[in-house]
């Protein structure tokens, strides 16, 4: 706690009437302030924004700027290197343009990570608050389900489900969300348990607030910061899961490119000298996930009332 904020809290304690005189900030405002001064997080946010924009407008960019279709094969221009005429990042083993495929792939990879995380966090938030608040048999059953799911390696579950149902890029979002809601639920449940026993919840109850009002008006807002942190980490984690699944050939099916399945043939390229096919998609995943994790850590530090930054 720096000296000004200590002074603030002392005056507040000493003279409750002078609150208007002090520029008081909410937890959220202070966190935003800290976040904007956190250079590393801001750099990560800018990189992520650029990558997201490229991914979001990938189809338009390839159509109007590059004028190349990502799935058109060209037997005469196979395995062209970086900087070859008409193909900025070269072409792959079937003569498809690498840059166009990267842009299209990014849209799918980021989209799956983002929407998968949204779903898993919505599920986790709802179930976590309910189980943490009510406890008892609901909690026991949910605990059993979660521990069971966590005991099976998530990649096993994913490849089993993916192999059975042969998901499209859209339905893969639900499959991927399936593996990460357990962690979110566990976390939110723990937080809810803590908050439930605080005095202000007791006083709300004493005032006759309904159970749902306590859950969603008094408890849920306190979970916003943790939800943002988890969201960033989930998007990253799910992107990694999708990439791994697609790399093994069980995720999004070709010809639809994702950053993961663009690397599927990479082992042959190691020997055939196609480094320009390996590095770009790999680094795209790596950098995107890294940015998400850095932002997650930054948000966590910004919301941490004990941090000095």
């Amino acid at each position, binding site marked *: 706690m720096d000296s000004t904020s200590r002074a603030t809290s002392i005056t507040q304690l000493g003279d409750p009437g002078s609150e208007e005189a002090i520029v008081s900030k909410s937890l959220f405002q202070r966190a935003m302030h800290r976040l904007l001064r956190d250079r590393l997080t801001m750099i990560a946010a800018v990189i992520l924004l650029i990558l997201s924009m490229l991914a979001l407008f990938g189809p338009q960019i390839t159509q109007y700027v590059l004028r190349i279709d990502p799935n058109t094969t060209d037997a005469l221009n196979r395995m062209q290197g970086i900087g070859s005429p008409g193909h900025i990042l070269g072409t792959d083993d079937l003569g498809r343009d690498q840059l166009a495929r990267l842009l299209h792939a990014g849209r799918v990879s980021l989209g799956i990570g983002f929407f998968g995380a949204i779903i898993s966090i919505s599920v986790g938030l709802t179930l976590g608050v309910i189980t943490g608040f009510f406890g008892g048999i609901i909690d026991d059953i949910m605990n*059993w*389900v979660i*521990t*069971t*799911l*966590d*005991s*099976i*390696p*998530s*990649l*096993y579950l994913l*490849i*089993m*489900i993916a*192999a*059975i149902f042969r998901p499209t890029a859209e339905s893969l979002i639900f499959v991927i969300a399936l593996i990460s809601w357990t962690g979110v639920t566990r976390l939110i449940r723990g937080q809810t348990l803590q908050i439930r026993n605080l005095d202000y919840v007791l006083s709300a109850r004493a005032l006759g607030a309904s159970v749902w009002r306590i859950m969603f008006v008094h408890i849920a807002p306190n979970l916003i910061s943790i939800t943002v942190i988890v969201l960033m980490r989930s998007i*990253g984690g799910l992107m*990694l899961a999708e*990439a*791994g699944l697609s*790399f*093994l*050939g*069980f995720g999004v099916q070709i010809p639809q490119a994702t950053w*993961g399945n663009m*690397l599927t043939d*990479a*082992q042959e390229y*190691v*020997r055939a000298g196609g*480094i320009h096919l*390996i590095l770009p998609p*790999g680094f795209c*995943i*790596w950098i995107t*996930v*890294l940015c*998400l*994790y*850095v932002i997650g*850590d930054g948000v966590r530090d910004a919301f941490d009332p004990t941090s000095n930054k």
Partner: protein
Amino acid sequence: MYKYVLRRVIQAIPIFFGITLLSYALMANTPGGPVAALAFGANLKPSEVEALKIQLGVNDPWPIQYLRWLVGDDWLRWDTDGDKLADRSVLIGITGPNGEPLPPGDRRGILRGDFGISFVRSRAVLPIILERLPASIELGVSSLVVGASIGILVGVIAAVYHDRWFDHITRVLAVVFDAVPIFFLAILLLLIFGAQLQILPLGDRCRVTMDPSCPPIFQRLEYLILPTFVLATGGISAYSRFMRASMLEVVSQDYMRTARAKGLNSRTVWLRHGARNALIPIATFLGPAIAGIWGGAVITETIFNWPGVGRTVVAAVTSRDYPIVMAATVFAGISTILGYLLSDILYGIIDPRIRFD
């Protein structure tokens, strides 16, 4: 103490049934089910498909099917007079749809080690898994050991030199390696050490010869280096971060100040009083770490051509050889449960603040 262990073991039992239930449910919901998988391309007559259905019991209600898979059907329908035809049964029918007598049940169920017959290899599943288990254990255990020892060491040093360059660099590296897709890391390392520098092999468990078995592990360590490192990266970054946090928390404790005030040298303070106490919460890591290793091994074994369970699962899923996938899932689940159990018990033993009552 015994009560505590016993209670934890009893708590693990429903988890085991949860795992078997889930993998069975997934299997039973495959398009067409196991019969379609078995009969696919096998040129069976419709009557033979019917017979197969009865033998597999796919027309029974699913709780019975699950029971049959779990504990076998040799006690559900059996033969008392030795004519190879069933004459007694419980829960399931004794005759086929046209009233013809059926052979007695011959499945023993997974609880007695009968994981069925592989659809593709036409061999019992259990030996197939057991053959590949040593390679997986070799890779998994070495990754766990490497991950935990490097991670803990880095975490302790980072905490001792808190806010100095070592701390900053390792914290950055921990996030960087946490975010790397391990298959990409594997390919990069293969590219650098295998293809460019040519100092490490490009995969496999040992030199490929006519003899499928491998020499003792210390004669082929170079084959183990890259896959172990790749599989351990997640562990290293997680362990180092948690160890660092745990150390920093311990440092602020009163007994650390007391130890310093007594005039103990700083090595004793950091290691005997600090690190030993900071290690306690790390014990809870074993369960999740084992689950992580199983999952990571699927990718690592595939890339490095490592003949373990993970690579077998990928091949089995591709060829829709579900009995192998189910068996591997049950194995992975059991070892994860054991990991959770062990870490809870360890935690109870090494932390004297936990009371067993």
